[in-house]
């Protein structure tokens, strides 16, 4: 402990801040009181009925429970801080006193707290006046040492007290809660999730995503958690269910897969891709996990709250076991670019390998697109069906993914997207005006040296927008030679920046051709 640092501690600020901490911790009671009044008003007979009111009231009770249970640990920590600040004040006084005494008596104190000369004095052979001076300095050094000991003791006591209170807050009050935890973790940790355990729950498998979203929003948190726990395979793949819930369910399934076979190549690929997504420091959601068909989808960002969502639809020869990390890498690249073009716009990018992609020999034919289109349409509808209004959704399709997207637009009901981006397309099968979004919101880009995009296997080359319709966007990169077909998500690609502007809704910045 450096006595100079301790002597400079601002005890006045510490007292003011710790008092404010106590005030805030105490105010949790007021939050609960006000929330209780709202709950009571809603629970009055005839005030709130209809679908979802029971679950809503239960969730409100759960929220109040969590809030009430969070108050005491917070207050205990606040009181601990106040007590520690008292000891820090004593330490500061002792350090300042020691340094004052030392300065007045010619005693040196190092940053480590060593005192020179020490408290022991040898006056042998000295003249009486010199001996008296030496003895005075030794006495002063003794006082300084005693003050420094008092400083160390008070600091150690305050530190220990604070560590203990912090430990209690983390371990006893809100166990397992950390900066990455959400409300569900908190509710589980505090064992406050409401109580509707007796209601029978039927999962609407096969229903439209809008219907599923309505049903899901009408469940209490307790019921949602029960379903996730009891039927993770169903919930994890059900379009219309909130992304946080699908993530929780799919991670449980993934954990089980890895427990059953730690070398399962599908599970390992998904786990590795989750790590790639985590490098952004953003929420990562395992939105889709289908071990039987070997399909997966991972979102960078929070699909439940993002203002803008991009769904990346890959092309041929893209399989989870070999390409999930690379596909997520593309999502990370796009997500990071969206934050460069507008750091204030919240975005989630879903790397989706949700259909059985064709191999090169199969790519000229439309069968895989026919099979994959319903899944893509349901995924887009599921994202858009978010309660309280869906995000601005952009489907970004690459290569054969553009064919799947074209087929998805032909599925019953509107596509559910706000914009469509087609890059490296070997033909789409539908014209820009048939995407169920305004034709100018269909953006088409083609890089140099992209031979696949010129194949026209599936009809008109969409990059010929004078014939196809839509908006032509720049898609070139600094890759001079080589395969331009795989360059669209590279940082130097104009396509990547244009996608970022489109996802963020900055249409004026899109570089057109």
């Amino acid at each position, binding site marked *: 402990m*450096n006595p100079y*640092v*301790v002597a400079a*501690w*601002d*005890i006045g600020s*510490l007292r003011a*801040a*710790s008092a*404010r*901490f106590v005030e*805030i911790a105490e*105010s949790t009671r*007021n*939050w609960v009181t*006000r*929330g209780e*009044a*709202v709950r009571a*008003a*809603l629970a*009055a007979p*005839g*005030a*709130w*009925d*209809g679908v*979802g*009111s029971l679950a*809503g009231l239960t*969730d*409100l009770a759960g*929220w109040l429970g*969590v*809030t009430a249970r*969070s108050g005491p640990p*917070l207050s205990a920590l606040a009181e601990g*801080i106040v007590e*520690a*600040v008292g000891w*820090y004040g004593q330490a500061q006084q002792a350090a300042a006193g020691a340094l004052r005494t030392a300065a007045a008596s010619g005693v040196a104190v190092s940053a480590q707290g060593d005192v020179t000369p020490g408290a022991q004095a040898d006056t042998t052979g000295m003249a009486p006046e010199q001996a008296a001076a030496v003895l005075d300095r030794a006495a002063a050094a003794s006082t300084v040492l005693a003050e420094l000991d008092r400083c160390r003791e008070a*600091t150690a006591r*305050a*530190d220990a007290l*604070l*560590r203990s209170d*912090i430990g209690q*807050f*983390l371990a006893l009050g*809100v166990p397992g*809660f*950390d*900066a990455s*935890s*959400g*409300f569900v973790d*908190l509710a589980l940790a505090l064992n406050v999730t409401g109580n509707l355990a007796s209601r029978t729950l039927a999962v609407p498998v096969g229903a439209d995503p809008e219907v599923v979203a309505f049903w899901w*929003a009408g469940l209490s948190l307790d019921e949602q958690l029960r379903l996730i726990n009891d039927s993770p395979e169903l919930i994890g793949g059900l379009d219309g269910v909130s992304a946080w819930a699908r993530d929780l369910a799919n991670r449980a399934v993934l954990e089980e897969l890895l427990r059953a076979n730690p070398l399962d190549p599908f599970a390992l690929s998904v786990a590795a891709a989750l790590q790639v997504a985590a490098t952004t420091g953003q929420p990562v959601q395992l939105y889709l996990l289908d071990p039987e068909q070997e399909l997966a989808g991972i979102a960078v960002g929070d699909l439940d709250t993002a203002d803008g969502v991009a769904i990346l639809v890959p092309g041929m020869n893209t399989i989870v076991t070999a390409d999930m990390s690379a596909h997520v890498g593309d999502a990370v690249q796009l997500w990071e670019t969206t934050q460069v073009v507008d750091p204030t716009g919240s975005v989630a990018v879903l790397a989706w390998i949700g259909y059985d992609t064709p191999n090169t020999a199969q790519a000229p034919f439309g069968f895989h697109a026919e099979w994959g289109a319903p899944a893509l349409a349901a995924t887009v509808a599921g994202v858009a069906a978010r*309660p*309280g209004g869906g995000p601005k959704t952009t489907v970004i399709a690459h290569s054969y993914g553009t064919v799947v997207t074209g087929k998805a637009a032909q599925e019953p009901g509107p596509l559910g997207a706000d914009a469509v981006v087609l890059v490296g397309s070997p033909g789409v099968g539908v014209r820009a005006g048939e995407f169920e979004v305004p034709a100018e919101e269909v953006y088409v880009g083609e890089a140099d040296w992209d031979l696949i995009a010129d194949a026209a296997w599936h009809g008109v080359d969409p990059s010929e927008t004078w014939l196809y319709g839509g908006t032509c966007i720049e898609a070139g990169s600094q890759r001079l030679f080589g395969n331009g077909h795989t360059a669209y998500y590279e940082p130097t690609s104009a396509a990547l920046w244009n996608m970022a502007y489109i996802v963020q809704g900055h249409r004026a910045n899109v570089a057109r051709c």
Partner: protein
Amino acid sequence: MTVLTVQIAILDAAAESLMGVCGTVRAAAGDLGEVVTALAVAAPESALATELPGVPVEHLAEVIAARGQVLAARVADSARAYRELEAALLGRMERAGGVVPVPR
């Protein structure tokens, strides 16, 4: 005025109140963050500076505020649904030129 009008008023007021509570909680979260920073700055090298900033007190309040806002939005959605229902019923009454029973 229909039977639904009263319910709409209750739901609107509840959503607004709950949103207000969440605003207070969110502001408290920000205050907690500032307090923790102030404590750390005022006593460098102490546990206030080395340990306390790692305790997610600000995050705790933010999580509570965010969840409360979701619930407030749910109540507001109900109010909106009731309002749409009321408008539809009133429209139907007008078209019928008389009184149509209002379902509860």
